[in-house]
Structures are given as C-alpha cells and as structure tokens.
C-alpha cells in the first residue's frame, strides 16, 4: 500500500484540486483583463502583462498604504503579545501570589469568547474613548492575545527552578532574570507564537472593517474588498488578483522559510487554544 500507484494518484488529484485556485490567482495577476475569464482557462498568461496589473491595483486604491497598515497592525500585535504574553506566562508559571488562579482563570475565559461577540460593545467603548477611526482604535484592542499568555505559561513552567534560584542567589533582580534567563530559553516557543499571531493579525478582517472609515487607515484585507467593485465601469479582476497576491506573499514567505515553526505553531494553537 505504501508506494501503491493509487495512493499517488489520489494525492496528486487532491493536490491539483486544492492548489488550482491559488495557481489561478497568481497567474491571473500577470494576465490581460480579457484573458482572465478565458474559456478554456489559460494555465499560463499568453499575453504576459509584467507588473501592469500591480500598477493598476496601485492606481485604483492606495494599496501600499493598505500594505503598510497591515504590517503595522501585524507587527504591533506580534511584539505586544509575545513580550507581555511571555512576561505574564512567566509570572503565572513561576511565582505564587494571592489571586493567581483567579486572575489566570479571567485571562483564560477571554479565549473562549469569540471576537464576533465583542465587536458591538468594544466599538461603543472605542467611541467613548474617542478612538473611533484612528490608529489607536485600530491597533490597541486586539494587540494582546490571551492565547499568548496561555501558551507561554505552559512553556515557562518547564524552565528549571534551580537556574532561576541560582540567579537570585547571585543577586539578579527579578526582571533581569526574566529578560536574561527566561526569555532566551523560551526563544523557540516565542518564534512559534510570533508566527501564529502574525498569521492571525495579517488576516484580521472584522475589527479593521468596523473601526475604520478612512481609506488611509484600512488594512489590506479590508482594502481588498474594494477591488471587487467595477472601476470606471469596468471589472478589474486582474488588479484584484494582483492585490490578492500581494496580500498572500508575506504568509507564503513565512511558510517557505519557517515551515517547521509554521505547522508546529498552527497545530499548537489549535490543540491548546
């Protein structure tokens, strides 16, 4: 059964069916508009457009601003979640203090509440703070993810206590123990967490859609939706596929270069979250 041709055939069929739409997206980004819906489909562009569709995408909407906003959104989420998640996870795992279980339970309970449930009250809260339609409102509410605390607590619990004790005897301050002993040992877990949070933040759609009205504050996911509308009376599928390709590249790069962390991180997020 191991090298049975049927297994190879099924695998090949699955791979072709599931990869085909992605192939369509990338190849269409280099096709002329009329060629995109050609029947039968052209697997490769016959009339290769170079980067013309990407330039058109930039003419239709401020795609590089969207792109920059998406990076800003993703990076703040990654940095804040990884650093404060590790700090809190270390605190929960390695210290006994009054209210510890209760506080951890409170953090854990936020994982169980889907964002769709928070969107209305959170929007009203942002309005009250005057953060509506601003970078503060866009970036702050989601930039710390409870999953980070949860995951880091599990990894920090495995750190050897003797090592921390030895540093204490040497007179190291607690924060320095975290920075110089715990963080370096947690590095592989931090990398997995960073990749998960980046993927989540890069794909975020609902909150950026709700909180921002200014085009200049849109992230790529939200900006993309505007490419499905006709531009000057003409559908712009080529530009839409070019913009979609741009929005996929950062995740694809992560996948290619950090495949092990990528799969490990996503699996850990699913299993433990």
């Amino acid at each position, binding site marked *: 059964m191991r090298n049975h041709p049927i297994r190879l055939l099924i695998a090949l069929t699955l791979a072709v069916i599931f990869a085909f739409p992605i192939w369509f997206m990338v190849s269409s980004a280099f096709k002329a508009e009329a060629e995109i819906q050609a029947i039968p489909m052209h697997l490769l562009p016959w009339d290769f457009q170079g980067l013309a569709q990407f330039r058109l995408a930039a003419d239709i909407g401020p795609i590089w601003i969207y792109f920059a906003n998406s990076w800003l959104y993703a990076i703040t989420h990654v940095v804040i979640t990884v650093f404060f998640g590790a700090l809190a996870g270390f605190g929960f795992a390695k210290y006994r203090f009054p209210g510890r279980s209760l506080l951890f339970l409170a953090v854990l309970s*936020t994982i169980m509440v889907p964002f769709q449930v928070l969107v209305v009250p959170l929007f009203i809260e942002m309005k009250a703070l005057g953060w509506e339609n601003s970078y503060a409102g866009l970036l702050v509410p989601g930039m710390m993810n409870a999953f980070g605390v949860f995951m880091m607590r599990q990894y920090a619990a495995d750190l050897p206590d003797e090592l921390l004790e030895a540093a204490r005897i040497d007179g190291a301050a607690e924060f320095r123990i975290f920075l110089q002993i715990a963080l370096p040992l947690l590095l592989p877990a931090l990398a997995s967490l960073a990749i998960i949070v980046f993927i989540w933040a890069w794909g975020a759609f609902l909150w950026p*859609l709700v909180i921002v009205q200014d085009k200049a504050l849109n992230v790529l996911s939200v900006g*993309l939706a505007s490419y499905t509308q006709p531009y000057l009376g003409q559908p712009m599928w080529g530009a839409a596929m070019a913009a979609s390709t741009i929005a996929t590249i950062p995740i694809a790069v992560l996948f290619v270069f950090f495949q092990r962390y990528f799969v490990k991180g996503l699996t850990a997020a699913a299993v433990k979250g």
Partner: protein
Amino acid sequence: MRYKWWGLAFVLPAVGFFAAFNLFPMLFGLYLSFTDYDLLNPPIWVGLDNFFNLWDDRLFRQALGNTLVFVAGATLPVWVLSLLAALVFDQAFRARDWLKAAFFLPVLPPIAVIAVLWRVLLHPNGVITSLTGGWWGITEIRWLADTALAPFSMIAVHDWAMIPFFMMIWLAGLAAIPPEFREAAAIDGAGPVRSFWHVDLPQLRSTAVLVAALSSIGAFQTFALQYVLPNDAGGPANSTMVLALLVLKYGFQYFRMGDAAAISVVMFGMILCVTLGQLWFNRRA
C-alpha cells in the same frame, strides 16, 4: 518570599489589558443585550424583550437557520475529507512532500483574499462553471446569485480553505500513535482498513473531538465570506445572511445596539455549548 509580588507585577500588564478590552466589553455587551440603545440616547432597560423580539424576527430566524446549515456543511464534510486526506498523506511515498505542500496552499491566503479570489472563480460564465457544467454543455451557473445555490457555494469555498488545515491536525494526531501498535496489528494479520478502524481510530479520539469542535466553532463565527463573496453582503435575498453579519447590520447600519448585542449573546451561547460538549466528550474518554 519577598519576590512573590514580582509575579503579580509581571501578570498585571496583561491582566489589566484583558480587563479593559475583553472582560469589560463582555459584561458591557451582556448589559446592552437587556437594553434599547441607539448610540444617541442613553440605554433603556428592557429586560428580556430583545430576546423575545428576536424570536419573532424573521430575519433573525433566517440568519439562525442559514448559520446552522453553514455549520453543518462546514463540520461533517470537513471532518471526513480532512481525515481521508490525512490518511493519504500520512505515509511516505514518492513526491509526497511536494504534493502535501501543494495541498496545503489554501491555508496561506487571508480569508479576505479567499473571498475575492473565489468571487472571480465563481463568475457565472467563469472558470469553475466551465470545469463543472462545461462537460454537459452548460455555460452559465449563477453560483453566487441564485438563492438556492449561494449558501452551498459559501460552504464549498469554506471547506476548500479548511480541509488542508484540519488535515494538519489529523496528521499531528496520527504522528502521536506509537508505530508498534500498527506493526502489532499487521503481525496479527489486520489489513489497512481493519488496522485503521481498530488501532488508529480509538487513538485519535481526542483529535476527532477537537476537529469537530474547532470546525463548528469557526463556522458559527463565519462572516467574511458572506460579506465579500455575494454582490450585496448576505445576499442574494438574505440567503447567505448569517448571525455575525446580522450583528453588524443591526449594530452599525440600524444602530439597534441592544438587538445586535442580544444576537451576540445567542451566538456565544451556542459556541459555549460546543465547547462544553467538547469538554464532556474528552472527560468521558
């Protein structure tokens, strides 16, 4: 233990953050669901009226029904097909890693990209029409504009994106089974089907529950596909209107914050049931 307070200092930034941006809105949302609130006038306490009104609200019932159909379509087929895919890719064969990577590609694009991409693919006279109806000489299929077809198009797109992801979860579960188990089954003369049924499947119990729970929880929250894929969000004729979309419509289009919050509470209740069901299943094992 003078350093025990440091622990509190370390967790406080995170706890404070979650209190402000998760726990407070959670409770505030629950409160709002018992009020009428239009953002302009102060909220008026109406007790359970919003929930009773939802029950009489035809659009809510339709959204609830659509959501349940979507959850069913996003759970059972995904569960079966992702398991089958995992069984195909679990064992080493020629070119496996390349084929697996190709199969995994739908996991990469953000959900908004998936929606935009499939809007192009599902053009009435487009590529998917020619690859399916084309064999029978059909040149136009209104995948997204037909009220009977549109909900199933949503499910198909969603399943395409989720099956490779859940295959990965199954693979992690399969990898955790000690190879001696299968070897022992093979020595006892069990074929691949019986070996899977009696050796692998009992070991995959918690993975099986996890895949069912995660896929249904994700499907209850579905939103982006129904927002971007049809010409008008939730359309045509509300045939793809789902609960999360209705929250947005009532909240940000009609400014009926109380009703929107009540729908959110209903959504949360249903997701909580799935989570509790998952815990119950795992405890029984």
